[in-house]
C-alpha cells in the first residue's frame, strides 16, 4: 500500500472531517476512511449549527481554521442570535441550514484540502503492535499503515435503532453499523458503555397547514458563525412554531407500553436536555403543551424537521401524535423517528489530547467519547487532528485550558468527570464564561493555532488585520481623555445620562452601564471612532465593559487554584489512601487526574480529600 500515512482518520462525520483537515493543514500526510464518501458532512440530526455553548465551540473551531462555521454560513437559511439582551457572554448564534448545501460545503472543503486523501471502506479493526497503533485493517485483511489513527465512529459503533418493538442494527436510519470495530474494541479490554439518543419523525411540508402557524423569521442583517465573511448566502426562510396538545399527549400515553424506553428494551441513558416526547409527557404530566419548532430541512426539499418531538414510538403512534398538533392535522410522515443505542468508550481512558492513555498513537473524537452534537464533535475533531499530527512530528500534545476555550472545558470535563448521559456543551459548564465569548473566540485561539501550524495564511492575514483594527480602537479608548469643561454638564447629561465630574478616559466612561460607543463618539467629537466597522466597535465595547469583571474572576480563581497547581503521579494508588471513600477512589482511578486541579473537579472530592492526595502524591514521589 505504499508509504505509511502520518494520520489516518476513520469516519467522515463532523469530528472526522475536522480531524482530517486539521492534520492535513498541519502538513501531515492524511487519509480519511469512511464507509460512504457521499455522506461526508451529513447532518444526521436536526439541520442546525450553533446555540448556547455550541456556537462558541463552532467559533473556536473556526478560529483554528476549521470547516464547520464556514459551511454553516454558506448553508444558512434562517439565523438568529439567542440571548441578545442577556449579555455578550451568553450570546449565541444559531443557524438553520440547508442539509444538502451543508454537506456539499463540507465535501468541497475536504476535496480542496491539500495533503488529504480519502478512501471509501469500512474498517474491521485496528492494527496494533505492542502498545502502539500501526494502522487499520480493512475487510479482506487489507492492512493500511499509519503512524497515528483517529477514530470518529459516531453512533455507528454497534449502533442499534429502536422504533416501537422493532429493532435493527444500524448506524443511522438505513445505514449499516460498524460492528467489527465495536467487538474488537470490547475484546481489547477497553471500557465500553452504551448511550442512546433519538430523532423525531420528518414531515412533508406540503401537507402542513402553514397559515395557522406562527412564523419565526431569522435576523437581518444576517448574523454569521465564521469570522470569515461568506462569498454568497442562500435566500432566507422562516421556521414555524406550534405546540403539542393534551390530545397529542394522550396519543403518546396510550402507546407507552410499546415504547422501547419504557418497556425496558433500551436501558442506556439518553440526554436530559433533549428528552423524547415520551419522557416529557411522563415527567411533566401537568404541562398541557410543549413547543414544537418546525425547521425546514432545506430550500429544495419539502421535508420538515419538527424539533421537540423526538420519539421511538411505533410508526402508527407517531402519526397519531403528529396529527394531534395544530397545523399538522393532515401532515404526512416522510421518515419515522427512532431511538438509537450505540457504544462509546469511557472518555476517562483518554488524555486531554484525546489520545488513549494505554495505546500510543490512537486518538478518539466525537460521539465515540460520549458527547452529542455536531459542534462538540467538530471541536474534538480539530483537537484530535492537531494532536495526531503533533504526535507524528514528535511534538508535545496541545490542548487549551478551561480558561482559554470551551474546547478546554469540553476535554477536561470528558477526561476527568466522564459522562453518564450524552454530553452537550452548555455555557453553565464554563466557570470562565465571561471570558469565553463568541466575539473573542478568534483572539483567544487564532494566535496559538497559527503557532501550531493549523491556521492557514489567508485566515491569519484576515485575523491580523481585524485584530489590528480592534487594538487601534482600544488604544484610542484607553488613551484619550475627556475633560468636563470641554464637554459641558448639559451635554453630558443629554448624551450619557449623567454628569462628568472629573477628567475621564473614554474607556472609563464606556464602563458606565448605560453608555455605549455611539454616545462616546458623540460626546467626545472624536469622529475617528465612527470609522470602525460595526463589528469591531461592538467587540471593543464588550472588551472594555467586561475587562474588570474578567480580571476579578481571574483573581478569584487564582486564589482558589494556586495550591492546586501540582501534578499527581500517573500511578498513584488511590486505594492505599486512608480516608478516601470508595466512591471517590473509583472515580479517581477511572479518571487518573493529571493534576490536583483536575482532581478537584471530580465529583465527591472534598478539600480534605485534596489534602490527602497532596500528601500521598508527595510520598509516592519521595
Amino acid at each position: 500500500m505504499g508509504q505509511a500515512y502520518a494520520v489516518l482518520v476513520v469516519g467522515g462525520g463532523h469530528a472526522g472531517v475536522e480531524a482530517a483537515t486539521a492534520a492535513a493543514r498541519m502538513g501531515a500526510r492524511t487519509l480519511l476512511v469512511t464507509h460512504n464518501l457521499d455522506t461526508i458532512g451529513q447532518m444526521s440530526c436536526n439541520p442546525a449549527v450553533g446555540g448556547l455553548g455550541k456556537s462558541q465551540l463552532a467559533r473556536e473551531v473556526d478560529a483554528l481554521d476549521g470547516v464547520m462555521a464556514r459551511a454553516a454560513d454558506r448553508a444558512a437559511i434562517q439565523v438568529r442570535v439567542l440571548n441578545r439582551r442577556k449579555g455578550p457572554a451568553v450570546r449565541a448564534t444559531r443557524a438553520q441550514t440547508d442539509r444538502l448545501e451543508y454537506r456539499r460545503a463540507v465535501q468541497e472543503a475536504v476535496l480542496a484540502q491539500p495533503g488529504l486523501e480519502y478512501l471509501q471502506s469500512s474498517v474491521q479493526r485496528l492494527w496494533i503492535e505492542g502498545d502502539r497503533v500501526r494502522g487499520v485493517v480493512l475487510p479482506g485483511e487489507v492492512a493500511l499503515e499509519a503512524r497515528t489513527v483517529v477514530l470518529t465512529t459516531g453512533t455507528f459503533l454497534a449502533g442499534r435503532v429502536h422504533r416501537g418493538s422493532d429493532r435493527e442494527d444500524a448506524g443511522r436510519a438505513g445505514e449499516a453499523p460498524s460492528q467489527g470495530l465495536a467487538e474488537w474494541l470490547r475484546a481489547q479490554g477497553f471500557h465500553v458503555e452504551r448511550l442512546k439518543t433519538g430523532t423525531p419523525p420528518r414531515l412533508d411540508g406540503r401537507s402542513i397547514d402553514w397559515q395557522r402557524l406562527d412564523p419565526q423569521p431569522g435576523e437581518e442583517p444576517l448574523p454569521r458563525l465564521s469570522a470569515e465573511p461568506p462569498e454568497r448566502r442562500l435566500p432566507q426562510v422562516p421556521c414555524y412554531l406550534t405546540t403539542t396538545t393534551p390530545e397529542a399527549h394522550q396519543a403518546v400515553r396510550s402507546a407507552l407500553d410499546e415504547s422501547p424506553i419504557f418497556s425496558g428494551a433500551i436501558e442506556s441513558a439518553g440526554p436530559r436536555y433533549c428528552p423524547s416526547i415520551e419522557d416529557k409527557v411522563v415527567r411533566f404530566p401537568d404541562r398541557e403543551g410543549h413547543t414544537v419548532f418546525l425547521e425546514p430541512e432545506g430550500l429544495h426539499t419539502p421535508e420538515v424537521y419538527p424539533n421537540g418531538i423526538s420519539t421511538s414510538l411505533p410508526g402508527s403512534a407517531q402519526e397519531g401524535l403528529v396529527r394531534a398538533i395544530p397545523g399538522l392535522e393532515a401532515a404526512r410522515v416522510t421518515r419515522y423517528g427512532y431511538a438509537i443505542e450505540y457504544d462509546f468508550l469511557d472518555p476517562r481512558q483518554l488524555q486531554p489530547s484525546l489520545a488513549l492513555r494505554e495505546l500510543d498513537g490512537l486518538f478518539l473524537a466525537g460521539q465515540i467519547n460520549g458527547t452529542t452534537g455536531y459542534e462538540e464533535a467538530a471541536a474534538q475533531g480539530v483537537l484530535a487532528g492537531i494532536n495526531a499530527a503533533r504526535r507524528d512530528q514528535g511534538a508535545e500534545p496541545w490542548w487549551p485550558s478551561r480558561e482559554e476555550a470551551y474546547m478546554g472545558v469540553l476535554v477536561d470535563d470528558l477526561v476527568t468527570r466522564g459522562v453518564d448521559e450524552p454530553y452537550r456543551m452548555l455555557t453553565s459548564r464554563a466557570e470562565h464564561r465571561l471570558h469565553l465569548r463568541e466575539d473573542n473566540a478568534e483572539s483567544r485561539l487564532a494566535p496559538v493555532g497559527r503557532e501550531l501550524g493549523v491556521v492557514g495564511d489567508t485566515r491569519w492575514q484576515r485575523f491580523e488585520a481585524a485584530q489590528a483594527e480592534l487594538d487601534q480602537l482600544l488604544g484610542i479608548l484607553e488613551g484619550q481623555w475627556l475633560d468636563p469643561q470641554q464637554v459641558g454638564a448639559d451635554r453630558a447629561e443629554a448624551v450619557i445620562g449623567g454628569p462628568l465630574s472629573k477628567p475621564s478616559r473614554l474607556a472609563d466612561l464606556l464602563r458606565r452601564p448605560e453608555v455605549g460607543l455611539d454616545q462616546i463618539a458623540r460626546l467626545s467629537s472624536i469622529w475617528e471612532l465612527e470609522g470602525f466597522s460595526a463589528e469591531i466597535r461592538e467587540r471593543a465595547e464588550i472588551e472594555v465593559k467586561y475587562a474588570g469583571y474578567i480580571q476579578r474572576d481571574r483573581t478569584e480563581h487564582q486564589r482558589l487554584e494556586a495550591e492546586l497547581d501540582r501534578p499527581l503521579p500517573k500511578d498513584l494508588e488511590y486505594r492505599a489512601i486512608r480516608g478516601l471513600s470508595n466512591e471517590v477512589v473509583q472515580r479517581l482511578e477511572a479518571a487518573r487526574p493529571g493534576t490536583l486541579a483536575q482532581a478537584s473537579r471530580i465529583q465527591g472530592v472534598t478539600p480534605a480529600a485534596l489534602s490527602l492526595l497532596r500528601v500521598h502524591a508527595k510520598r509516592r514521589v519521595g
Partner: protein
Amino acid sequence: MSPRTIAAIATPPGKGGVGIVRLSGPLSRDIALALSGRRHLAPRYCHFVTFRDRHSQPLDRGLVIYFPGPHSFTGEDMAELHGHGGPAVLAGLLAAAREAGAEDANPGEFTERAFLHDRLDLSQAEAVASLIEADHDSAARAALRSLDGEMGRLVNELDEALTELRVFVEGALDFPDEDVDLLGEGQILERIDDLLGRLDRLRERAAGGVRLGRGYRVVLTGRPNAGKSSLLNALAGREAAIVTERGGTTRDVLRESVAIAGTPVELTDTAGLCEAEDRIEQEGVRRARETFYSADLVVFLVDAAVGWNEEDFAQWQRLPVDRRHWLWSKVDQAPKGVDGGGVSTVREGGLEPLTELLRTRLLDAEPQDALGARERHLEVLERARGHLETGRQAFAGYGSGDLVAQDLRWAQEALGEITGRLHSDDLLGRVFATFCIGK
C-alpha cells in the same frame, strides 16, 4: 501565584502562661514586622516587642522570632509570636495576623507543608501522613458537629435558596427558547434582596456566636487614678499594668483576659480621658478613644473617695451612649458609704458588682439564638454577601444575566467553604429536574 501564608494558635486552648501564634508562608516576615512594629528581625533571634494591631492598638507584649526558609519547620519562611496566653489575647494576635494578610491554617497544614518541602524523612513522613489523615478525620467530625446544629442547617438552607435562584438564572441563560425566563420577569432583584436579608440575619446570629466563643471586649476607663489598673490587676490576679499613686501612669492600652461565668472577657485598661498636656499622654488618650468603638461595653469608674466632679461629667459625656456604664471604685475609701454599685480591690467580694454588671449587660443580653460559628464563617458569609451585592448592582446596571450569574456562582462557591462542597452538586441536573427543557 505564591502559596497562602497560614496562621494558627500553636499552643493548646485554655489559659496557659504563654501562648504562641505560628505563621508559615511568604508573608510571615512582613506580618511579624507589622505586628511587632520592628524594622528588622534577626533570623532565629528572640526580640522582645509590643504586639499591635493595624490601628497601632497594643495587643500584648511578648517575643517574636523569625525563621527564614528553607531552614524552618515547614521549609517556608515562618514566624512565631509568643504572647501571654489567654484565649482573647491569642485570638487578638491571630486576628491581627489575618488583617495583615494571613489565612487560617487547615488542620495539620503546618505538618503537611513541612512534609511537602522535604523537611521530614521517609519514616517521619509515613507517621505524619497518618497523623494528617487522623487530623482530617477529627476535623471532619468536628466540622460535621458544628454543621449538625442550627448554623449548619441555616447555611445549607441559604445554599439551597441560592441553588434555586441559580437554577432559574442558568436555565434562562442556557435554554433561551424555553419558558423559564426569570431574567425577563424582573423577579431576580427581589430574590437577591431576599437572599441578602437572610444572609444578614444569619451573619448577625453567627457574629453573636463568635462573640460568645472569643469573648467580649470590655474597656475600663475613668479619670486618672480612678483605680482602673488596680481593678484590672485584681481581676487578672497579676501585675499587668504599672500602678502608682500618681495619676496618668497608664499610657498604653493594656489588655487582660479573664473568665466570667465561663465566658472569656477581654478587659482593656485605658489611659484616663483627661485633656492631657504631655505628648505621650495625648497619644494614649487618642488610642483610648479608638478603643471605645471596638468595645462591647465601656465601664466608667468614679472614685468613691472623691465623688463625681466636673471632669467626670465631661468624660462621661464623651463615651458611647449605647454601651457606657458607670461604677464607683475604691468604695472602701468612701467617706460615708455610697449609693448604687461599687467595687473595691481590697474588700472580700469587692469585685462582685463588676462581674454582675458584665453578666447582665453582656451574657444575658446576647440573643438566645446565637449560632455556633467561627471567625472563618463570618469571613465567608461576608465574602458571599459581597458577591451578591456586586451581582445585584451588575444586574440593576447592565440588566444582563451573564454577570449576575457569575456573581451567584461565586457566592455559592464561598458558601461551599462552610458546607464543604467543592462544586455545586450538579446544577444542571436541577435545571433539568425543574424545567421541561429541550427540543
